[in-house]
């Protein structure tokens, strides 16, 4: 595709998204849908331009000692904690352990969450990306991501079939721990920033200096539309989109719609239990039975994929590709693990890790630890298999 054609197509996609959002915002009920679409589009642009992918960022650091991606994640978490304060402080002026902020992703903390996060981490390593990155990669033309999403759908089905047993085993009793409820807003914020700061210090200490790969300084056009955005900018933008989305519609998450589609479809085929016990009482990206065609989360994801497509076009990074059979199989298998993990853990790296830590939920931190563990082990195993092969 010629650069001019790519730019024209990019512009048309963005105009389409904007026109759709204006059309959606006609009535009171549509305003949340409209906002979700636009927020998803913003998120898609930032992910694509900043290459904000939990697994690639981790892999860059583990394998190349390149810290820039990990710093973007840490900045997103730290800035998110700070920006969330503006919303939380207004909604729950006096934080108490038993009064959780509305809709915040403060999930139940227990062994099931740890297992789900670990499985999710393993799945990202196997399939090559976390779920949110598969979505933005789809916009870049990586059609292999469809295999990962199909795998995730299968994983959700398995998750629904194991949910009732896991819920009655421990989840019913696992407390949703909200840090500001225990330590107050100041205490929880300081503690969160201290931990993130320490991780950043450790990461930067062992990082290699970035290679001087760019021979010339970028023009403003290149800096915005072509080159990868700096990690701090990307992190700040992710945090801002997260806090604004929480204020207006719901915390960020990318799996609720996928889960809803699978649950609704599975129900009609008799593959999903009629009742998923307690699922309505826990917090996170909960898969509700679909009641309307358009949902905020569905539009968020649609906006994400479309805008990432537009951003990739402008950057000259839209490269349609199909992986080979083994690549498809790995993506699918990793998708299954991620699907089970996201259903059981009530979200993914975005819904539980990002939105959870930003809101002061212990569940977010638990997900961070066990998901990283799973991903690091998965990456190591993958390297060994590739070397042996």
């Amino acid at each position: 595709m010629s650069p001019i054609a790519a730019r024209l197509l990019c512009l048309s996609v963005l105009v389409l998204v904007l026109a759709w959002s204006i059309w959606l915002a006609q009535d009171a009920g549509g305003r949340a849908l409209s906002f979700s679409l636009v927020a998803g589009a913003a998120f898609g642009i930032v992910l694509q331009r900043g290459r904000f992918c939990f697994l690639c960022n981790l892999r860059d650091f583990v394998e190349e000692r390149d810290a820039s991606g990990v710093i973007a994640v840490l900045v997103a978490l730290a800035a998110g904690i700070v920006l969330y304060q503006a919303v939380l402080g207004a909604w729950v002026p006096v934080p108490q352990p038993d009064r959780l902020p509305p809709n915040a992703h403060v999930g139940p903390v227990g062994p099931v969450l740890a297992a789900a996060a670990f499985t999710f981490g393993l799945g990202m390593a196997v399939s090559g990306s976390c779920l949110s990155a598969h979505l933005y990669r789809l916009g870049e033309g990586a059609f292999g991501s469809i295999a990962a999403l199909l795998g995730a759908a299968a994983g959700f089905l398995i998750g629904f079939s194991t949910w009732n047993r896991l819920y009655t085993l421990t989840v019913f009793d696992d407390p949703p721990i909200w840090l500001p409820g225990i330590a107050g807003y100041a205490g929880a914020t300081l503690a969160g920033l201290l931990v993130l700061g320490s991780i950043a210090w450790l990461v930067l200490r062992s990082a290699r200096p970035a290679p001087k790969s760019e021979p010339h300084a970028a023009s403003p056009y290149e800096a915005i539309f072509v080159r990868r955005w700096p990690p701090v900018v990307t992190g700040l933008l992710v945090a801002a989109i997260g806090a604004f989305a929480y204020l207006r519609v719901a915390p960020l998450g990318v799996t609720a719609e996928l889960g809803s589609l699978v649950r609704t479809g599975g129900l009609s085929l008799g593959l999903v239990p009629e009742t998923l016990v307690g699922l309505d009482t826990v917090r996170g990206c909960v898969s509700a039975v679909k009641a309307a065609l358009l949902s905020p989360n569905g539009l968020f994801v649609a906006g994400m994929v479309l805008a990432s497509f537009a951003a990739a076009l402008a950057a000259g990074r839209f490269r349609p590709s199909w992986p080979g059979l083994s690549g498809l199989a790995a993506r699918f298998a990793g998708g299954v693990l991620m699907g089970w993990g996201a259903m059981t853990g009530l979200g993914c790296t975005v819904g539980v890790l990002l939105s959870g830590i930003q809101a002061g939920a212990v569940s977010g931190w638990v997900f961070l630890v066990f998901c990283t563990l799973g991903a690091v082990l998965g990456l190591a195993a993958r390297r060994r298999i590739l070397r042996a092969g």
Partner: protein
Amino acid sequence: MTGIRGIKIFSAVASAMTLLAGQASASDALVDAKWLQDNLSNPKVRVFEVSVDTGVYERGHIPGAAHLDWHTDLVDPQKRDIASREAFEKVLRDAGVDKDTTIVLYGDNNNWFAAWGAWVFEVYGLGSQVRLLDGGRKLWEAQGLPLDTAVPDHADSTLTLAERDNSVRARFVDVVAVAEGKHDIKLVDIRSADEYEGKIFAPEGVKELSVRAGHIPGAVNVPWGRIVNEDGTFKSADEIRAIYAEKGVDGSTPVITYCRIGERSSHTWFALKKILGYDVRNYDGSWTEYGNAVGVPVNNIAGTIWTGK
């Protein structure tokens, strides 16, 4: 100093006048969005949102409105009952409600839970101070009127609530007596026709069901939605009167309203009691109590049999 005091007195008089003028134009039981907008800074008006969807109030409410949580503030969180006098009194004192406060309620879901709130206020003797925002949250949003996220902090009042007035509340035994034909009281079942006729046990998407389908013998079926307009506002008093008269409910005999859990029927209770002025009690036990009770008469037109599924 005198200047400032003068302005204060002037503004207090002005707001009192607005209040009086507004009341004169609105119906006694209802206020419209215009009236509420004019009275948002009136110190003698307290607005409460009673919404059930989580995050709705926090993401933006009518400026100055406080939140009444249906699950904890208006009911007893332990046993199935309305809020205890002590608990409700504390909530109202914290919100600065006094004997001369005009209380305006509104909410999501067609004002169902706001109407439940109005009924609870009535039980505790504050009914004459309560108004419902006609059309509720839906109409306010549809008109694009301002919303605010700030939570008001009013000075506490020293309000003392009266003991419960059971003349607006029907209990199980009262309803059974009516079903057995012992009293000349009209029962109004406001659920959907399918629930009334016994084709289904509960509306779609609702978990709590009764092990029997149908309705209380003698009840007439007037689904709640019949008395509201497209935009969620109540129809005119004359229209509402005619709709019920058609079903033989004309105010000449006392009325009891019920639904599934007593909240949608509060909406009808509000219309019959507060707009038409009939003698009406709300049966908050409703079908989830009656339809599970052993040995009481039931009229199941469809004949649907409960099979435990």
